[in-house]
């Protein structure tokens, strides 16, 4: 008897279409599992049991009338809690937005609703996407389903929820690796699209020029299916690009002969845990055997990417979060002397520690006397990073390396530095240069913790990455492993 919750979206879709399972039954199964297991990992902030079941009934009805033809029809989905859902609490895992109910939805949510998915609930995350561990949530910290002494990665619980079978797929935002890193720690697949491919309207902004919404799924096929549904120009988002519709499932072919892959030397240094390094090098061997040409190359700018990232992201966040002052929405202090006090108290009480630190950092790098040295400098370094990648992509179809130089940290074990996390180095370049990037499982360490392989591609060449990832998947079985809580 196969566990429904272990099945991929495309497997579930087949069952639903062939009437082997009903949508309501599936939804109830998932919610049951959440009730049993989510206490241990806290991947959800809000579970919408009643609404989900009602929605399932409607969708089953549509399916019966042959009116629901999407490959995602009836599939349970979870959204990170910084994606606005009309009439449903959207908190960003912050006390500041604890009771915020948006009267509008994110474009991606509308798109998925029109594909007849079932929204199971809103996922836990680091407050306002700030953090690498999902330990900065106002609610509970999120744990890793492979080992609940370990973190799930940050800055959202999408990886954990998918790995634990608590949803068919998840959707979350990636600012500096926030969907790829959890995917890496939890042994699942994630894809951050090219900047501009997916609408940001309704995504509660943290770092506007860096973030994109992307899918977290059990395998590459699922990833392509979800990407199909969320891609596309949105006139409400000025940074959204007009490219024609691409059917990403056509990239799902088991053939990478002739593909040229680059591995930056800077991504496989002693900084990387030996088991992670081995898993990555092993992956390189597999890809070579499958017909790709893999070679190491130098990408010295990579060492500076995290620094530029933190300057830009904290600066933009400090500005994006200034609107939270308790006046129009959000947390408002109970007692205050005057307007100034209202602002200070509401913000100081409403924001968590890490958020306040990042706001201070961001305010600092934009402030008079420091702007040129830090923010403007970071924008220039951004140019250098972009140019370096453009140059590399003249030769390579994809650039690979570890997603994270280690497996999941123990809970409570802080990364070496505070505020900034140097381990982010591998993922942030894709955000800085707006490139598409995936993380796929490529191994386990001796503690049974998943290892992630990161792929980075040229702008709008998600297909290349999907092809590469799919081929790898077809010839390995890392994606078949399931966590047992």
């Amino acid at each position: 008897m196969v566990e429904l919750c272990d099945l991929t979206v495309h497997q579930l879709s087949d069952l639903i279409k062939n009437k082997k399972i009903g949508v309501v039954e599936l939804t109830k199964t998932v919610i049951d599992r959440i009730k049993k297991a989510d206490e241990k990992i806290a991947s959800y902030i809000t579970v919408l049991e009643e609404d989900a079941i009602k929605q399932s009934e409607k969708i089953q009805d549509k399916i019966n009338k042959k009116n629901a033809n999407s490959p995602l029809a009836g599939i349970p989905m979870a959204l990170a809690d910084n994606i606005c859902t009309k009439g449903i609490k959207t908190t960003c895992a912050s006390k500041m937005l604890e009771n915020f109910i948006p009267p509008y939805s994110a474009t991606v949510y509308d798109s998925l609703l029109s594909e007849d998915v079932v929204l199971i609930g809103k996922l836990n995350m680091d407050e306002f996407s700030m953090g690498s561990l999902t330990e900065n949530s106002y609610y509970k910290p999120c744990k890793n389903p492979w080992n609940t002494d370990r973190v799930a990665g940050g800055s959202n619980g999408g990886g954990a929820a998918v790995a634990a079978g608590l949803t068919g797929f998840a959707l979350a935002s990636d600012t500096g690796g926030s969907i790829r890193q959890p995917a890496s720690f939890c042994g699942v697949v994630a894809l951050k699209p090219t900047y501009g491919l997916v609408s940001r309207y309704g995504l509660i902004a943290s770092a506007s020029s860096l973030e994109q919404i992307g899918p977290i799924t059990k395998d590459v096929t699922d990833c392509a299916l979800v990407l199909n549904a969320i891609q596309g120009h949105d006139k409400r988002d000025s940074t959204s690009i007009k490219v024609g519709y691409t059917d990403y499932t056509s990239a799902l072919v088991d053939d990478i002969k002739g593909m040229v892959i680059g591995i930056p030397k800077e991504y496989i240094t002693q900084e990387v845990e030996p088991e992670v390094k081995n898993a990555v090098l092993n992956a390189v061997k597999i890809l070579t055997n499958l017909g790709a040409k893999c070679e190491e190359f130098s990408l010295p700018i990579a060492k500076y990417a995290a620094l530029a990232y933190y300057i830009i992201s904290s600066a933009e966040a400090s500005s994006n979060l200034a609107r939270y002052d308790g006046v129009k929405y959000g947390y408002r202090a109970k007692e205050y002397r005057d307007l100034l006090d209202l602002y200070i108290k509401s913000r100081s009480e409403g924001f968590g520690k890490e958020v306040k630190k990042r706001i201070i950092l961001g305010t600092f790098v934009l402030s008079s006397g420091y702007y040129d040295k830090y923010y403007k400098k970071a924008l220039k370094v951004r140019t250098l990073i972009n140019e370096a990648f453009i140059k590399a992509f003249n030769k390579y179809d994809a650039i690979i390396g570890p997603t994270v130089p280690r497996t999941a940290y123990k809970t409570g074990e802080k990364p070496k530095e505070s505020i900034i996390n140097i381990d982010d180095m591998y993922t942030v370049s894709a955000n800085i240069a707006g490139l598409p990037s995936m993380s796929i499982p490529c191994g386990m360490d001796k503690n049974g913790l998943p290892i992630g392989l990161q792929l980075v591609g040229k702008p709008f060449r998600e297909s290349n990455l999907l092809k590469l990832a799919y081929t790898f998947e077809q010839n390995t079985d890392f994606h078949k492993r399931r966590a047992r809580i």
Partner: protein
Amino acid sequence: MEYEVIIGLEVHAELSTKSKIFCSCTTEFGGDVNTHICPICIGMPGTLPVLNKKVVEYAVRAGLATNCSISEYSKMDRKNYFYPDLPKAYQISQYDIPLCYDGYIDIDVNGTEKRIGITRIHIEEDAGKLIHDDKGEASFIDYNRSGVPLIEIVSEPDMRSAEEVKAYLESLKAILEYINVSDCKMQEGSFRADVNLSVRKKGENKLGTRTEMKNLSSFRAVVRAIEGEAARQIEEIEAGRVIVQETRRWDEGKNMSYSMRSKEEARDYRFFPEPDLLPVEVDEKWREEIKNTLPELPRDRKKRYINDFSLPEYDASILTSSKMLADFFEETAIKSNNAKAASNWVMGEVLRVLNEKQMEVQEIPFTAEYLAELITLIDKGVISGTIGKTVFEEMFNSGKNPETIVEEKGLKVINDQEEILNIVSEVLKKNVKSVEDYKNGKRKAFGFLVGQVMKETKGKADPKIVNEILKKELE
């Protein structure tokens, strides 16, 4: 000690687009509070701005009409500060690369022409409105105005007196109205001026410390604020004190300004490029397209009136001060073929009645064609000038055309010699004393007798004929 006053102005004009700058809410003035808002213009989480193309067009138009260069590439920036009327806690504006720069307008002050430089014009969003409860403990926020598009026009510190400032503001206002980018209604807040002022001893080269004055809601307030601030600064300097660079709020009621130091101090705006909006590129083609939509500007129109219609400069100035007025005058002048008469009527009766009834030119209940007809009736002698004024009043009240009014009320000039002779005879009979006075040398009695004839004919008798006949009869 003689002092020189150096003044620069920052004018904010609301653009008359239909929708706001970053969302599709209406820009209409005067709606019930918070009924012209949406998640975007009140900065709700997750919302994004999209730039209204017309805003760029109108700003470029304003730049071209003020002889500015247009930036081929410009961008939007965030200006970060906290204030309740600013929903996102940042204003989307333009910092280092404004849409327009290096322009000028020429003004006339007391017969002298002077060129006032325009440093820059940029686009930005307006903030909401704060309503202060005088009695209570609270202030209230209406975001209807939040997101209304503005252009900020910054002048060089080229002005030296309140008169120059007034001339500059009037010229700028006329230009913006002419090119139809703003209705420039100071009382509705769609045209606001902030004054930057410093003083220095005459002959000195260095500029003094300047202060900025805000909250000036009429031209008169601007003039008074300038005079008041210049006096204050001179007083401070004479007393050996130093001028503090600060923003001051003008209180029209008390005729003085107050320091706003506590609010403006320590404001570090932390400008940085707006990541949610893309750069604006105005290429030559677009610029030319916009340039071709420019109408004749007020100054050129004034010159044309002086040349073509032989109007004195003063008249031409008044007539071209508003495009609607100029349009009305010009059509009247052409259709009546009597520019001088048209000018007199428009500057005289028309403006008087508009002022009395607090009406705008576009509210005049009859067309320029009708006014031209009226002038023609007088020119042809069908009615007298005096009767003309009566007809004019009636045109305003009823909107009917002058010929109809003349017919209906029987106002035609009486020029029948016999008829006038009869009336004159009657008058002479009734006013024996005046006849005697006249024959005894009192010239004034003649005027009186003429007056009596006119009274009898309700002003319709042709005065020339009356004069002739009366003179003859009195011989």
